[in-house]
């Protein structure tokens, strides 16, 4: 997991909404192959932070330095708009909480996956379709559904399709916003297990936002706990959850219901 330089170096990231704080002075490094969980309750700023990290929202202050493949570490907000767009389409993946935000509902499942490949230059129809079929299989969607429209899919299938669409272009960094949040509990376990396996097999670096500490424990190597826009505690996942130091983290951990 250790490489010479971090994949992402975040320094002093701040975003306000008028007088209201979205996130304040957030700094961290993300190393290749590392899964960082950002936990906190609604309104803690975790989604704002994720949007700033993934260039969906411009911060008011601070830097997000990404180790690009060809030009080394670059501040993503100093890149030209086309360069940033290309990065987002090729090197990065973004998995939204609601799959409809990350999918094109008007085209088939296969086209949703194939589109990302075409964005990185693939032109051979046969190969694109073969790749789409392979990825549908990897996310446990039956191959005969490839020409079906996403609206005929269940919530769990849609989320798996969104994951396939993101991973088909072999991204190095994937951002996930509450990836299990819109799913029924019985479907969550399957998706978690699938994500856990894919992340380990592909050696992906991931920043995952979740309010669910069980999801964080399962997926993340490291956690940052956010409250009112600031990071109040960070560390190894099991350390933060089993030996929380900050009063707010202790309250979060103590508030989990164990069936």
């Amino acid at each position, binding site marked *: 997991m*250790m490489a010479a330089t971090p994949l992402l170096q975040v320094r002093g990231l701040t975003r306000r909404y008028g007088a209201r704080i979205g996130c304040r002075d957030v700094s961290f490094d993300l190393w290749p192959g590392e899964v960082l969980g950002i936990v906190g309750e609604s309104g803690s700023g975790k989604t704002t932070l994720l949007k700033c990290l993934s260039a969906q929202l411009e911060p008011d202050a601070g830097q997000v330095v990404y180790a690009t493949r060809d030009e080394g570490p670059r501040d993503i907000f100093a890149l030209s708009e086309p360069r940033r767009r290309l990065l987002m389409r090729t090197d990065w993946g973004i998995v939204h909480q609601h799959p409809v935000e990350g999918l094109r509902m008007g085209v088939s499942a296969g086209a949703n996956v194939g589109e990302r490949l075409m964005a990185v230059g693939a032109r051979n129809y046969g190969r694109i379709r073969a790749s789409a079929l392979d990825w549908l299989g990897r996310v446990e969607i039956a191959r005969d559904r490839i020409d079906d429209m996403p609206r005929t899919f269940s919530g769990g299938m849609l989320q798996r399709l969104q994951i396939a669409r993101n991973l088909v272009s072999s991204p190095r960094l994937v951002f996930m916003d509450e990836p299990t949040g819109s799913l029924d509990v019985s479907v969550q376990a*399957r998706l978690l297990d699938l994500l856990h396996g894919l992340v380990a097999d592909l050696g992906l670096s991931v920043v995952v936002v979740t309010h669910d500490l069980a999801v964080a424990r399962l997926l993340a190597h490291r956690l940052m706990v956010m409250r009112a826009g600031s990071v109040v505690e960070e560390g*190894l996942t099991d350390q933060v959850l089993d030996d929380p130091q900050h*009063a707010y983290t*202790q309250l979060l951990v103590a508030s989990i219901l164990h069936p």
Partner: protein
Amino acid sequence: MSPNAVPPAPEFALAVTGLGKQFTLHVQGGVVLPVLSGMNLEVAPGECVALNGPSGAGKSSLLRLVYGNYRAQKGSIRVRHRGQVVDVATATPQKILELRRHTLGYVSQFLRVIPRVPAIDVVAEPARAVGMSLAEAEHRAERLLSRLRIPERLWSLPPATFSGGEQQRINLARGFVVDFPVLLLDEPTAALDADNRRTVMALIAEAKGRGAALLGIFHDAEVREAVADRVIAMRPPAMAA
């Protein structure tokens, strides 16, 4: 050798020095619970040290501190890791994960598993993580599952529905599937029958034989006497006034 020569002290595999730990419970008005203070111990390669004492003496907490699961407030926890010495008390999360992958094994009392993963994969996973081939990792996992008498029909099932004793044996198999240089054992025989207890004693003896350093809590006096080279007595810390 002259009669006065002192044999060189064996190099430690694990050395705990001046270790202090307390919990501050902010949710309960900042109550402070002392757990350990001024704890010292060393474990040499090939040695098994047993922690003994009443519940509340901090035995499990000490194992968790060594594994990096709890944060130390005072002192150091030095582990020999691939020729270097790493202090768990100050190591980065990345270093602790590397330590756990290659050097530190931990058999806890509870099995934490991913919902749908089959028992055989749960056991083989640590071996895969150190870079063993799938075939070798599975071979090792199968051997341990057989030795620990997990029926073959259960290997492909997720352990979530297994009995307490079966889950403990899955945990044991996970802990022994890699030849960890340092192995932490928290009540490894608590839920086992006599045959499996003997298997665990054999696994511990084999680990010592290959030079592993073991630190464990063995409630069962017969097991403790059979495996431990030394016993360290622990008692609950005085409550803070």
